[in-house]
């Protein structure tokens, strides 16, 4: 289709598609009134049985942990895919001179301070996910922010020295493997895969909620390492 034909087609069909979606949405209950029994059951079960505060974390890491496993593997596969796709850096437009980012001392100092804070915050988010809003995915991304800051302040080569690729890959695989191993722990404990085989502990304490903090930590590790790999791969594209 030429550009114009496509425009005409879309001008006809996009509103029709919107009308179709509107027809669907008309069958929804008014905003704020949809309450499902699934949600209410989970809301009552999670604090009582698993002694977990953050109900979203109980859904993500315990009740529907298989979805999170799939999501983690999506991240793993995608990072592997990016590494695979960016594995050759030759090409017509590859830069001949390396351009590293020169940062001033002030930038470096601030970045150092904020890096430490970001790591601390990320670990807190990941570790406290079952008590307050947070969790592995969020904590992993926050920890990644530390690496991004480091990259911005120090450049690609120092970042690679600080976080060598093999180590980061090993961390990533360890995270993914950790999740799977915890799942198998449920099998060994006699129940199904991904069963919460650690004791639930006391409500509100750091060691409550069984395996949820462990899974959260493994996921955080994998997310941080995976995105760090992505960052280093894309950064290396600029610096040939």
């Amino acid at each position: 289709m030429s550009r114009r034909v496509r425009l005409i087609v879309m001008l006809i069909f996009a509103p029709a598609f919107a009308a179709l979606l509107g027809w669907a949405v008309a069958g929804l209950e008014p905003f704020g009134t949809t309450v499902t029994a699934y949600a209410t059951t989970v809301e009552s079960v999670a604090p009582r049985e698993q002694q977990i505060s953050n109900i979203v974390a109980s859904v993500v890491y315990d009740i529907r942990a298989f979805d999170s496993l799939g999501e983690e593997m999506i991240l793993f596969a995608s990072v592997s895919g990016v590494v695979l796709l960016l594995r050759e850096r030759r090409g017509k437009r590859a830069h001949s001179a390396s351009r590293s980012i020169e940062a001033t001392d002030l930038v470096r100092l601030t970045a150092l301070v904020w890096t430490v804070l970001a790591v601390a915050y990320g670990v807190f988010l990941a570790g406290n996910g079952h008590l307050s809003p947070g969790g592995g995915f969020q904590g992993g991304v926050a920890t990644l922010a530390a690496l991004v800051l480091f990259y911005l302040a120090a450049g690609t080569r120092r970042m690679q020295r600080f976080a060598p690729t093999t180590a980061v890959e090993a961390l990533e695989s360890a995270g993914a493997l950790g999740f799977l191993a915890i799942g198998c722990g449920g099998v060994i404990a006699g129940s199904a895969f991904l069963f919460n085989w650690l004791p639930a502990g006391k409500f509100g304490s750091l060691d409550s909620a069984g395996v949820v903090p462990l899974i959260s930590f493994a996921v955080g590790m994998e997310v941080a390492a995976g995105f760090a790999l992505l960052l280093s791969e894309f950064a290396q594209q600029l610096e040939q």
Partner: protein
Amino acid sequence: MTFDDHLPMLVIAAPLMVATVLAALRRQVPRRVVESISIATAAAVLAGSVRIAMLACKRVPVVWLGGWTPRHGMALGIALSAEPIGAVLAAFAATLILAGLLFSWHYFDDVRGLYHSLMLIFLASMVAFCFSGDAFNLFVIFELMSVVAFALTGYKIEESSLEGAFNFGVTNSVAALLMLTGIALLYARTGALNLAQIGRTLAAGPLDGLVIVSLVLVLSALMIKGGIVPFHFWLSDAHAVAPTPVCVQFSGLMIALWLYGAAHIYWLVYAEAVAPIRETLQCILLVMGAITVILGGVMSLFQRHMKRMLAFSSISHMGILLLGFAGLDARSTAASALYIVGHGLVKGGLFLLTGILLHRFGTVDQVALYGAGKELKFTGAWFFAGGLLLAGLSPFGVWFGEARIDEALGGIGLHWPGWIIVAGSALTGAAVLRAGARVFLGIGTVAESEKREPTEKDKRSKPGPSSPNPLMLVAACGLLVLAVVLGVLTRMESLLDAGAEILSRQGLYAAHVLEGTALAPHITGVSFPAGAERGIIAAAAAVLLAAVLLFTRWRALRAIELLQQALNVVHSGKVTDYVAWIVVGATLIGGSFAVFHGKRQDESGHRLSAEPRGDGRRDVHGRFLAPAAAPRAFDQVADHAPLLTDEVHIVFSALQKLAPHVLEDKRNALLRPADEVEGDQTAGDIRPHHQHAEVHGPDVVPPGAPVQRDHDLTTVVVERDDRRLDEEEQEDVAERPSADLERLAQEPSHRRIFFASTRRFAYTPTARSYIHAGITRAMRVAIDMGRGNSMTRAPRSIPPAICFAARSTGTRNGIRNSFFSVIGVATKPGLTTVTRMANDASSIRAASRKACIAALLAEYPELLGRPRSPASEAIPANRPERRSIIAGITASKRCSIPK
């Protein structure tokens, strides 16, 4: 839990674990070790899935991950159910991955560990897809498979691979988002993510725009992934550029698996709910399937790049698969599953043979390879065999599936798809045979216009080995041999038949998954399909057509030139076009459903008895104007109030809200500890549960009326039949209302009035727990009911079941998609009467409430201080019944009631 119970999950977890380890250790471990480990893992998965398939002969295990078994019939966790068709397809997935990995042993000059870990993740995702029983989990697996596929498609990092992968990526991401929108709509309606449970809840609810559009979105998404016209454009781009072992997975199983997923979702979720529009759905699927078959076949004839040709033939065969699924019954589903296996084997083998050519010569362009394959005699022979198999030569692989599809469709009276199938197979078979003749025999002409077809330039710098590696040949020919002997595997066929039958019995399957009722596959013997002569005809037609294409100047025909130009313009390679086609396709499908749905709505209003219906019908079309329509609807219904009060009514939600300690405790046992409930009750608070009906107008109750919850209400309930849920009903007999109406309406001492809205009941945990116990009974009750106004007997303890019975009555009267307000009066213990109020959504909710109030007021005008009409009985103000009535109305307010 035994090892066999864990097997479905282990078969998914093992390749994932090996994949993560391989990815981490890939630089330290030599290539051959990595390859051996991955082949061993694939073989282990194959063994595991074959064992699961064997076990599926006897029972269908359901594994609840995390140990989260369903509570009171509501699914909490994610279920993996190893049903027979899924098990067979999982074993097939392992077979294809094994063949692909064996092939890559020598195919790639240099491959890193990441390729193998991605292939293993792909295997895990295919197996997980076959077993998963949860809608959102299917979406996650959808994305997992897609992400791995994108990465593997772009593996060669050439211009065309990257473009093809990008097109693939964008279109399939749009598909994923469409599917997620559909799932979100389903969750909003049913509050569940487990497929069986969604199906059960949808079947009990109305069929309105939301359900239909979610069906359209999910179907469109899966058809995009399955390569059905007009969503198929990405397929040819992606399959042409992906590395050969990866193409085998895509064409051999992935696209077919997504179409099977569409059928799976249809059977588990939509089969009962969309039964009214089943013919429309069938028609749409048949038309799309037929167009896909023909278009795919024709396009494959025009191609010179062999992988692109095979991609278009895959599109054509996916059209045949869709024709099979369009039969919408168990037999055709089983036939289609068999076809998936047969086609996958043949297509996989053909792709691997093409890969041998690519490995040897560096190109798969027919024109460039003209005559070059003459020394590859063994490969060539198998290539011709593959072409004949693809054309549907009987009694081998692909023909089995096609013949069974033909039989199944013929069984429901559709004979024309069979000829489309023959035509499509002949076209694609001819394309393959022609390619084989050109490459391996060096015969035939090459037209000038053919040189304008899309192709890839020769990239290989040095020629490959002179004879193909035996391992590659083993992989390729192994698949083809399996396709040849497919007919021998009758056990697999009967397993597929049993599996399809299980899927088609949606209610039983849902009960098996959610409550654990036993379900055993019913393995019967299979007979040799009829229609062997069609296979011979198709193969002969393919040979003839190939000869015609080779030796005549068919391309010189003006019509053919125009057709080629038109098709090339449409298949432009631009991803923006592809997205536009997706929007067009989805809108057209949705639009056809909307048109047919509207037409049927018009016709459905006719069959109710005894009530003025004209205004009710108008309300259907006033849905979009619900807020504006409400006053109008109320007026209409208020006009009917005298008519309604002459009928016998029952209303329920006061029953649920107020009276029953019993009901409330049962409900609260799900939600709160008992002492909290006790405490509330003594305080006289009425807890504003979200399931309660809304506030009725404050003008209904005389201001300042003292109201309290009192034990009379409990007594009211207890006075009625207190049958337990598991007890057999003594009487099911429906009684005609007409003669009894007057008599029953005049019995004063047992008159109770309650309000309800059936749609609301679909969401209460109480109703959920009762649905399970009550619905079969309610259905049984409904069967005995006659037309619109009828009476039936039911225990008081399952009022929601009666609402469903009412809906079923409406169903049997031809009104499937109505909302009900059930208004009724219990006239003696255990006796309830149900009548249909009005027939649509939110406006009617408002209208029905007001109608209930109007009915109530008409019945008891003393509530408003008006004198009673002589026709009704007078109820003195201090009688318990009156207090209960007032309490019934007031308690629906979100307020506490003073002591």
